[in-house]
């Protein structure tokens, strides 16, 4: 960004615009992830939403996390979901519209949660820590993972390993021995 | 006080050992199973008769004491002893148990399980009667109750699942009142001991006794057939097989009355004073009501079931009077009614086995067909009516006198119940045993002498204690007198 442009376009305005874009991306993606009946749209919505959240992470000062977010959610989870969709639900099956009362009920419950959590958010006196370190670096993160959060780190790895093995076993064995049609 | 040989533990152990041996025996060896049961019952009977005779009536108080700390931190003791109140009950249990096992000699269906469960039940009954520790008392109480369900549901007859379920639910409901009662007493006494004698001697706070007695009265009262919590008992009697009916009506119902007496009245004498009018009222209603309902029954066992309600009402009335006469009468009535009702059920059991009906309209003229069975039934009926020189007469006499003294109006109503009970007993005797015999059963065999022997033992007990009531009452008085002292 050149200083010339800076005369016309103020950095704060750019930041604002970017922020609004990111928030919009998040909400729009979330809505797309939830509302359409076609599951493929939902996955794309999820990806969009993840992009927005990654942007928010940047705004919150952690580029590393934004990167990880995109890597894991879009690169791993969304792809896995797409595979699952391809392996399960045939695309051409028409999905009937949702049962109305259930829709309303869901909305009502969500609204209640929204209201109550809003109240919580607003009424809690958020206290800022007295001393704040300014060390946002990945290096610091790495150190923490290998020192104070060592055990958790290991546990998470273990959990992932177990999850993967479990997923394989579940998908392979618990499927009920019924082979997909067409195979000998 | 140290008798040397632990007689009471031996009484408790004999059926338990028998149970173990039976469990180890092979399934198809019915003979051995029967003999083991009979021998363990016989050992109990002999030991009971011995301690009944050896109890020092002049010294009175608790004798044959066996006391050992079991869980010191909670104050739980293994504490067995007998006095004038539970000694007759132990003797009663032994007699009924012994005759019950003998009566079921011809059982063919799942013999091993039957006798095993019966022995388990009897261990529990002995445990309740002998234990003076609230914790053990409650544990034994539940041990004695739970075999009832399989015993009725497997070997029973008429609506057996319904009867078994109803009985179990009622008794568990009662149990559910007793347990909080015991814990309440445990904490209210401030001693943190389950030792019944210690708590009774220290005395509970007066205001705690009100609730405490309420819990015990209705908790144990359910098992004693206290009106209006009585309907499980006729249904259960009807459904149960012969020996189970005998033990059930003869002994188990006494557990309830004994619990009210031993736990409720010993621990909460002041509570009894508060609840006594209601207690007496329910008892009297039970006496009259049971007799009237008995009038309308057509099933022999229902008739006896309702007569039990009526007679157990007498026990309750006696307890509610708070006088030596009334309580002695109640204890004696428990004994007498136990023997009498066992005789009833064993005779009806024989008739049912031979004719496969216990409906009164189907029978008739049985006195010609089965003179022995009829004799025993009629003797029991006469005892139930309160004919003098049979054991229950004396008990009823004492209860009526005490009842009239404490609550004149209720006493009169209770005596009126006597007439009604005479009417319905004689009606049953007439319709079942007299009149033209039903040709369908004309060839039904009478009891063999071997099977008449256990019944004769019961009948002999009724006559013996009827002719010589002091045999029991002198003993009972020694146990009751100190209790009544606590009411003052």
């Amino acid at each position, binding site marked *: 960004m050149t200083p010339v442009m800076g005369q016309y376009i103020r950095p704060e305005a750019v930041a604002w615009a970017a922020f609004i874009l990111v928030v919009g991306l998040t909400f729009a993606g979330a809505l797309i992830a939830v509302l359409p009946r076609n599951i493929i749209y939902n996955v794309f919505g999820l990806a969009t939403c993840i992009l927005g959240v990654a942007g928010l992470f940047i705004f919150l000062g952690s580029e590393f996390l934004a990167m990880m977010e995109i890597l894991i959610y879009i690169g791993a989870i969304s792809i896995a979901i797409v595979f699952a969709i391809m392996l399960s639900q045939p695309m051409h099956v028409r999905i009937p519209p949702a049962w109305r009362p259930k829709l309303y*009920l*869901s909305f009502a*419950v969500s609204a*209640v*949660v929204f209201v*109550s*959590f809003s*109240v*919580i958010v607003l*009424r809690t006196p958020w206290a800022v820590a007295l001393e704040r370190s300014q060390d946002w670096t990945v290096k610091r993160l790495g150190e923490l993972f290998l020192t104070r959060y060592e055990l958790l780190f290991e546990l998470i790895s273990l959990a992932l390993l177990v999850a993967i093995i479990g997923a394989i076993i579940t998908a392979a064995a618990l499927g009920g021995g019924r082979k997909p049609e067409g195979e000998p | 006080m140290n008798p040397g040989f632990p007689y009471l533990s031996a009484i408790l152990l004999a059926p338990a050992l028998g149970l173990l041996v039976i469990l180890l025996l092979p399934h198809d060896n019915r003979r051995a199973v029967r003999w083991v049961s009979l021998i363990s019952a016989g050992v109990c009977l002999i030991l009971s008769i011995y301690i009944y005779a050896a109890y020092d009536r002049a010294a009175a108080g608790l004798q044959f004491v066996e006391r050992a700390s079991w869980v010191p931190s909670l104050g739980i003791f293994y504490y067995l002893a007998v006095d004038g109140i539970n000694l007759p009950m132990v003797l009663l249990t032994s007699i009924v148990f012994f005759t019950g096992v003998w009566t079921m000699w011809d059982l063919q269906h799942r013999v091993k399980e039957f006798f095993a469960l019966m022995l388990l039940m009897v261990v529990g009954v002995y445990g309740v009667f002998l234990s003076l520790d609230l914790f053990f008392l409650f544990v034994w109480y539940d041990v004695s109750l739970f075999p009832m369900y399989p015993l009725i549901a497997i070997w029973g007859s008429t609506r057996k699942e319904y009867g078994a379920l*109803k009985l179990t*639910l*009622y008794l568990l409901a009662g149990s559910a009142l007793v347990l909080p009662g015991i814990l309440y007493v445990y904490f209210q006494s401030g001693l943190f001991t389950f030792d019944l004698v210690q708590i009774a001697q220290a005395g509970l706070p007066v205001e705690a006794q009100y609730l405490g007695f309420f819990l015990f009265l209705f908790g144990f009262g359910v098992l004693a057939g206290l009106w*209006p919590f009585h*309907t499980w008992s006729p249904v259960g009697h009807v459904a149960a097989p012969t020996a189970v009916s005998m033990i059930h009506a003869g002994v188990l119902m006494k557990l309830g009355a004994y619990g009210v007496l031993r736990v409720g009245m010993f621990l909460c004498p002041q509570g009894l004073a508060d609840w006594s009018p209601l207690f007496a009222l329910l008892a009297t209603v039970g006496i009259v*009501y049971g007799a*009237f*309902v008995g*009038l*309308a*029954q057509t099933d022999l066992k229902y008739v006896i079931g309702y007569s039990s309600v009526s007679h157990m009402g007498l026990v309750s009335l006696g307890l509610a009077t708070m*006088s*030596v*006469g*009334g*309580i*002695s009468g109640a204890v004696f009535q428990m004994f007498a009614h136990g023997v009498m009702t066992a005789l009833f059920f064993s005779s009806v059991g024989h008739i049912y086995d031979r004719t496969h009906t216990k409906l009164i309209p189907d029978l008739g*003229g049985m*006195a010609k067909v089965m003179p022995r069975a009829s004799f025993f039934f009629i003797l029991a009926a006469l005892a139930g009516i309160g*004919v*003098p*020189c049979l054991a229950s*007469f*004396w008990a009823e*006499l*004492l209860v*009526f*006198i*005490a009842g009239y*003294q404490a609550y004149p109006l209720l006493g*009169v109503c209770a*005596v009126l119940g*006597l*007439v*009604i009970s005479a*009417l319905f007993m*004689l009606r049953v005797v*007439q319709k079942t*045993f*007299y*009149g*033209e*015999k039903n040709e369908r059963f004309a060839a039904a065999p009478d009891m063999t002498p071997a099977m008449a022997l256990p019944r004769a033992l019961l009948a002999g007990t009724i006559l013996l204690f009827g002719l010589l*009531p*002091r045999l029991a*009452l*002198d003993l*009972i*008085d020694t146990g*009751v007198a100190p209790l009544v002292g606590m009411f003052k």
Partner: protein
Amino acid sequence: MTPVAPNGGELSLALLAMGLPLLSFFLVFFVTRPRVTLSCAVSLVCSGLPLLAAIWLLAGHWRMEAPILWELTWMRGGGVAVTFGFLLDPLSLLMLCIVTGVSFLVQVYSLGYMAGDPGKAKYYAFLSLFAWSMISLVLASGLMQLYIFWELVGLSSYLLIGFWHHKFSASQAGKKAFVMTRLGDLGFFLGIIVLLLNLGDLSILGLNQQAATRLTPGLLTASALLIFCGVVGKSAQFPLLTWLPDAMEGPTPVSALLHSATMVAAGVYLVSRLFPFFQGSPQALGWVLVIGTVTMLLSSTMAMVASDIKQVWAYSTVSQLGFMFMGLGAGGYFAGVYHLTTHAAFKALLFLCSGVFIHHYATNDFFVMARSGARSLKVPMLSLTVAGAALSGVWPLAGFFSKETVLSALAELPNPAWLWLGLLGAGLTAYYTFRLLFVMWRPRRTQPPAGHAEHGEGGHHGAAVYWVMAAPLLVLAVLTALLGAAGPALESFLAWGRPLPPGAHHGWLVAASVVVVAAGAGLAWLEFGRAGAAQQGFLSRIPGLWNLFANRWYLDWLYRWLLDHVVYGLFSRLFTLNDRRVVDGGIDGFCRATLGAGWLLSLLQSGLLQYNLFTMVLVMALVGLYFLLV
């Protein structure tokens, strides 16, 4: 009058009399029952020896001055003690002789009457049981002992009435007798409790001596009336009188023994036994008089229309018992006891004679008997006549004298109505007795039977049987004829040998009673006895009265109605319904409600994940809110 302890002889004799019948009962019932002859022998010996003991005791104490008392504690519990023992005084000795005497004669008679009956040994066992109860009742030293044996007497009565229990009517009658007397005993028992709680002493001597001074008049009257309730039941007085005619379903010797001479007289005996106690309350004695009078008249009318010979004597028994109570109620202690004594003799005789006829002709209907030639049995016929005449009060038989004493006791009362009622009763008695006698003596062969024939008990047997039965008749007939002369002696004996106060002698009373008896007998002669009489009473021309009398004044109907509609129909049915519907229904309803609630809750478990999530999330949100806001 302080009692003395018995010496060895008295003790052993009394215990022998009390114990032997019990021994005999157990022996016969449990041991010798299969061997009939042996059983009869045992029973006879065990009833004969008490008779000898009784006579010995009576003779030995003819001039006794103090009662003999012996007691031991039978039961003791909670301050209540029941004693077992005996009290020998003139009254109990006299009654002991009557009981053992009649009992022995009836047992001899039964040898013939029950010959061939399959249950003969059991019958003798029951007779022994009865003898034991009755003897112990008579000798009882305390009221509680008396009550106990009073009940046992009721039990043996039940067993003997229903002896032929394959007959429905017999078992029904036994039950009726037991329950109705039980109803009366209820009062008796309550009376005993009242006395026990207020006096603490139930000995008969104590009651007679102290009750009047230690009890308030109200309590005294109440307890006396309660005790009299028991008497009403046992002695079949109004309103509990209908069981006794039904009790005739028992074998005839049983009727003779229990239901005329001894057991039903126990009520009279009890009132005499406690006579000083009853005297303490004029109201109670007044009630005794009223009940006795009503019963006597009522049952006499019933006897006037009966055609069953045993029924006639049964009604007559009730009526004569009422007569005894009139005497006692009027204050005539000796009158009641004396009539009891003579009545025992002639009524037992009447029944035993009837038994011979019933046995012989296998019917209970005396019209049929007469037509079948009852006249030919000379001994029973003569005995019947003697006894009937005694019952009517014909001079010089025993009944005349005892009836006179009762009537003179009635004449002492300020109100002459009682005497007139007594005389009326005597007239009715003469009428129905002579009605039967004339029918028996002068049968009408051509005429259709006045009543329907019923099948009686027994059947035809040989001469040996006849004479075994006839021998006791002769003994009793002699007694009936002679007892009248023993009146003064008995009176002084019963009064402890003290000189009697000179009673007012009513010469006109003798005349009046003779006139009344003659009138009754004359009416019977006109209707039944004279040649060409239609043998139909004047009552058969008044259907209303006939029905009333034949249906026992509808008392039975009333009881049946009460039993069916109140006891069974109302209480029993309602209570049963309550048990099924309310109590059981409540519990079952509760159980069903529990099941239903479980079912309802299970609806929430739809298996749909998202509905569970709704609840979960909602609750979490609200709980969070709650903790934050509150």
